[in-house]
């Protein structure tokens, strides 16, 4: 909890500032960024992104990576769409879809952890495999009619308000995940493993079990993302959601999760996802081309990773300049506490 409070003061406040900045600038430049219509559609668009990012965060925190989330998204979406199109009971179809997402995550986990294969390689392969299976199922076709349950889950508002139901659902997920990662022993293990797998092993943490669990979580969240995608866009097509991988990874890194694992917070990821969605919306309103928006996200990712080491260097430089024995001692103590 201490780490949480500590981090909230630093990285996350920067994110909040950026969000406010984008809102102000965007509203001033186009005047429609904060209209309720735009906020609603932006929020709905960000739901898929946030869902993927929430699942990715624990995996990256343990210094693994999971590229296959978009493949799982596509596969689950296609399966649910195909089943409901053939008359299967909606809830059964959803259940099957989510079960498949768990299996996808489990496969990743087993291959990476038990076989000790590099996560990058495995999830690159499973990304292709899962997406490929979605192509085999649906070929080039698209499904466009869905049961109203799914549609309302993905696109309607909570009764009586202007807030989309999916956003509320995601906030609940984020809260749960936040509690798990920041308030339980499991969560502490996640960070410990990210810090140093060997040290975690020697401390008696069930490293394998924790790592497999993070992959399963990532698979499950990807499946839920697929379901919400169906409801929001009302379309199921093989390879859907493929363009969400970069934004999802960016949201996680921008949210303060170190690319090497060991640090980060869930609130940070939520803020980062919101920032990204707002930014994309502002760029879109300002008539940025599709590729311009994607490039902007690419640059943002670079800045997000490049900034912490740079800011750390700057802080060190400042401290060294005002060096008195006490300050230096403090600096040494606080830098070891910060970790990165």
């Amino acid at each position: 909890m201490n780490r949480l409070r500590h981090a909230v003061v630093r990285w996350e406040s920067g994110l909040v500032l950026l969000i406010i900045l984008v809102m102000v600038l965007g509203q001033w430049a186009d005047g429609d960024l904060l209209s309720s219509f735009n906020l609603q559609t932006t929020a709905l668009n960000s739901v898929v992104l946030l869902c993927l990012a929430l699942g990715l965060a624990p995996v990256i925190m343990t210094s693994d990576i999971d590229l296959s989330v978009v493949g799982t998204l596509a596969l689950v979406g296609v399966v649910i769409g195909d089943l409901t199109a053939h008359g299967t009971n909606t809830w059964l179809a959803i259940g099957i879809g989510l079960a498949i997402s768990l299996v996808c995550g489990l496969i990743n986990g087993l291959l990476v952890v038990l076989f000790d294969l590099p996560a990058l390689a495995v999830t690159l392969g499973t990304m292709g495999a899962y997406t490929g299976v979605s192509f085999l199922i649906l070929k080039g076709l698209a499904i466009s009619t869905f049961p109203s349950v799914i549609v309302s889950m993905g696109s309607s508002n909570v009764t009586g308000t202007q807030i989309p139901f999916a956003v509320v659902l995601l906030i609940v997920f984020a809260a749960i995940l936040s509690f798990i990662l920041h308030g339980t022993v499991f969560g502490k293990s996640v960070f410990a493993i990210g810090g140093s797998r060997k040290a975690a092993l020697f401390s008696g943490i069930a490293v394998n079990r924790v790592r497999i669990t993070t992959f399963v979580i990532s698979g499950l969240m990807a499946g839920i993302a697929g379901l919400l995608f169906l409801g929001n866009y009302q379309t199921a097509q093989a390879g859907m959601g493929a363009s969400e991988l970069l934004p999802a990874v960016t949201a996680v890194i921008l949210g303060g999760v170190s690319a090497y694992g060991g640090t980060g917070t869930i609130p940070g990821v939520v803020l980062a996802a919101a920032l990204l969605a707002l930014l994309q919306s502002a760029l879109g309103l300002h008539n940025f081309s599709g590729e311009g928006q994607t490039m902007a996200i690419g640059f943002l990712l670079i800045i997000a990773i490049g900034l912490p080491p740079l800011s750390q260097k700057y802080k060190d430089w400042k401290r060294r300049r005002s060096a008195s024995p006490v300050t230096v001692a403090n600096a040494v103590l606080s830098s070891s506490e910060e970790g990165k």
Partner: protein
Amino acid sequence: MKNQRSVIRAVAGIVLATASVLPVAIMGANSAGASGSVKVYMIPKFTGIAPFTQAAAGCKTEGAKLGLNCLYGGPTTGSAVDQVNFINNAVAAGDKGVLISNDDAATTNPALVRAEKHGVKVVTFDSDALPSGRTVYVEGTSTASIAQTELDMLGSQMKPAYTGNFIILSAQATDSNQVTWNKQVKADLKLMKYSKMKLVSIVNPPSDSAADATSSLQAALAANPTVTGIISPTTVGIAAAAQYLTTNKVCSKYVLTGLGDPNQMKPFMTSNCVHSFALWNFTQEGKVAACAMSAVLAGKLTGKTGQSFMCAGVKEVVLPGQTVSAGNAEVFTKANVGSAGF
């Protein structure tokens, strides 16, 4: 040493940060336009191929005469889901009208309906949406004439004439205009004239890229050895097919025709690999779309059969199905491909 490294890193970071702002700023802006004019937004199936760039140009020039500021933008791949985002952005930005060539009619429908509910007028062009999502559809040329022209171009070159098996090398399976045209071809085949021609397969590559079109064609030809004819109603497909036939030196074995971009097809006509293909003027289509949008915004056009409006001196009439035809298809042969004018 360490200081050197951190200086390099700092400089690199600053360079990257600046570099990140510049291209993004250059690349994005598309919004300049006459003040006081009504903003409308044109969304192609995907950006990057000449037909849509031409349609946008037509919309801009004709629109300017009518007081419309025709903005243009769309996804980089034929993704209907991405089109939905562009539609939503246009609505949120306060644009009064949306012109769209749909990647998938069913997918864009909810967004278009929502747009209309917000008072935004929708005119489709090139590839239609579901009727509930738009007021008027501007087609490049009528489906009936496309289908007939394709079959005539193919049949007349077959040996013996109008006899043989053929495939259609199409685009993504969800493209609504492809689906409509192919359906018409299938219906026309029942006519007496084409009774000896047989459609063996409709090939849908996974994407609109040349590489996928080529490999899909290769697979289809290998799987159907009795085929002697190929109709490709997409500019990407016919160009890829012509290239494939040329490099494999089998131009004489197949009759290739369809809808093509004259600029792309010129070398293949010179080499006699392709003898004829058709297209219509996309710039003209863009102009008619702009005129239609202007009329719809003025309340003069509601899509009822028989209504009419003027466009650049020509009277356009609304046909059944809220459809307006922008012109006629032009058949290109070696003789006139150089003077296409578009």
